[in-house]
């Protein structure tokens, strides 16, 4: 049976489904979850670049997310800069901070790198909590302007306040970013990253400048996370230092591990699954009278690593190889 036309057809169907989703299901809360999933897809994919493809365990990733959000929000609130420009600027700000984590990663690995990254994000979180003049501390920033409306040639104005319209911004961003990541990991750069992950000393011996690669991938990963943070800031329009918390990083980590570390679609599956499961499991609360969702996530994480090392995507991969 000829695979190619089938693959093509499935892809087109998938794209149409995704684009039409908000029109098929009009429930505003459902659309809200779609937007959140999209933002998390970008966030998880960025973390996956580091941990999955490069073998760099970054437990301070939430800091990049938060910095992007705060940067874009502050630029909009204090300098009146358009949020559209704020999105990449937030990414760039995070990227600069990415340098601070990239450099230690030259010498540190495994748990030592992990602890350093935690220290990094905790310090930044404390700064965002205590530099009240800039960030309003734990009160957070509210009243963040939404993405500015676009006026079309025929006079119609598209506003980006509703979940539905924002969804399109997010889904297009996420798709572009996934495309870029795919290109990246298939390129020479990506192959070098993967070889660095498997055997760092071996890679050095064949001439790969691991330091340069580490720095670059940190900066790219940070940029994407910051971009996601800026999206979040202009969507929810309220952010607080919680964005930089360890809990946020653990959420990202759980999503990627369950979805499938080191794969392209693993983070996507994980992000969508956990965002919607979060809602879907609420009915358990009525049965057990307690919120056991996080207990389940913890257990799921442990079970996944022990039994399903490559996550959900890995499960499907194995089947296709049988």
């Amino acid at each position: 049976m000829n695979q190619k036309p089938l693959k093509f057809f499935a892809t087109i169907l998938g794209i149409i489904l995704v684009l039409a989703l908000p029109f098929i299901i009009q429930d505003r809360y459902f659309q809200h979850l779609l937007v959140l999933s999209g933002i998390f897809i970008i966030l998880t994919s960025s973390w996956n670049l580091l941990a999955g493809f490069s073998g760099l365990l970054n437990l301070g990733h939430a800091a990049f997310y938060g910095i992007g959000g705060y940067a874009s929000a502050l630029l909009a609130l204090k300098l009146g800069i358009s949020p559209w420009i704020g999105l990449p600027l937030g990414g760039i700000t995070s990227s600069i901070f990415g340098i601070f984590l990239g450099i230690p990663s030259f010498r540190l690995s495994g748990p030592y790198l992990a602890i350093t990254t935690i220290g990094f994000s905790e310090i930044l979180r404390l700064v965002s909590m205590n530099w009240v003049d800039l960030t309003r501390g734990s009160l957070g920033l509210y009243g963040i302007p939404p993405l500015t409306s676009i006026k079309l040639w025929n006079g119609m104005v598209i506003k980006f306040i509703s979940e539905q319209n924002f969804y399109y911004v997010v889904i297009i961003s996420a798709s572009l970013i996934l495309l870029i990541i795919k290109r990246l990991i298939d390129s020479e750069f990506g192959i070098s990253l993967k070889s660095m992950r498997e055997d760092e000393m071996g890679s050095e011996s064949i001439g790969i400048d691991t330091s340069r690669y580490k720095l670059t991938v940190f900066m790219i990963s940070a940029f994407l996370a910051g971009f996601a943070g800026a999206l979040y800031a202009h969507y929810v329009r309220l952010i607080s230092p919680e964005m930089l918390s360890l809990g946020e990083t653990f959420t990202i980590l759980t999503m990627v591990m369950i979805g499938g570390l080191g794969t392209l679609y693993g983070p996507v599956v994980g992000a969508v699954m956990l965002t919607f499961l979060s809602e879907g499991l609420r009915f358990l609360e009525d049965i057990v009278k307690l919120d056991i969702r996080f207990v389940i996530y913890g257990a799921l994480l442990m079970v996944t690593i022990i039994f399903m090392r490559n996550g959900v995507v890995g499960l499907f991969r194995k089947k296709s190889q049988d």
Partner: protein
Amino acid sequence: MVKRSWMVWMAAMVICFSLMGNHSQLKAAEPFSIGILGPFTGSLAFNAEEMKKGMMLAVDEVNAKGGVFGRKVELIYGDTEAKPDKGVAAVKKLITRDKVLVVGGGYASSVNIATTEVCQNEKVPIVVAIAISPTITNRGFDYVFRTSPNSPQFLSGMNDWLEKVKKPKTVAFLMENTDYGRDGEKIWSAQSKKIGAKELAHLYFEIGDTDFTTQISKLKELKPEVTFNIASTTEAALIQKQAKELNFVTQWIGVGGQFTEAYFKMCGTVCQYAMGSSLEPTLAMKNPIVADFVKRYEAKYQKARPGIFSSQGYDNIMVIIDAIKRTGKLTGDLQKDRDAIRDALRKTSIELSQGKIEFDKNGQVYTVVPSPVQVHIVDGKPQLSIIYPPDRAGAAYQEPLPWGKRKI
């Protein structure tokens, strides 16, 4: 392989959407629902539970008498975790998914500043129960109301007392690093300047901190006559205990929200002499409406003491239900009903456990007046007594004694 991955993705989405699908049905037309926000997890949780108890007392009473327009009242809870972004998510869900008529509850100023903005944008009336930051009702939001006094109102009696009676020469601040803490700090700092007291230090802590020895040691060296301490139950109790352990004596003055049953259980008689402003119903038993509320509360909850949060919760729900009743009928058109409730709320005038509730043009209640209180030890147990103004005072102010001289 790409095809497989797409399939994986879509399969996952389908599974999750179907799980979700079970629960996004519109809430049935009856009973009708009021959304309640509160920090039901986290360190403020048990105060939120107190608020909930007061609310449930109100709901049970109303439903027992046939509900409103023959329909029962139902409360749907949204957990804010005392965090602004979670609060926003919770209130959005109540509004868009649960489609509540009106939002009540709410505890913690930082969270409420954010949630009220959402409600204003979504045109849903919200009646804030427990939060004192003035910002909440001074932005010209017509859908926002508040049944709790704001901080200037809360502290006016205390400020009077500071100016006319205590007249301290030195003060210090140990504040929760939130809107709640910082707003009070601004008011008291201004008052200190007004009465010529020297501000020796401004120290802070986060909700959830448990170690205050560094801050208290520093205060001990500075020896302020008065230490303003805005904190919630747990932190406030720990501060009292650690002050004793470090042998630090000062006149502690807080807002009063920390004087809950849990607080007294945690610090026992150690908190003797601490002061605050209180709306405790048990202090106003001369008012028959209040006494009746206390009786009914104790009957329902078996001798549990109705503190400030339960009475504020109770009043919050009663005000909302009273407004719904005064709209005359519910049309079933969500936006029309919400607007009608908003209009009815504006005209509220009702006597409840905190006293009379009426709103000014900003939606702020102005008829509830807290009084300065101090913890006195009566029969070996800590108790609040009103100490000012003289016509309402139940006992005289006591100067804090050094630890060695205290009888307990």
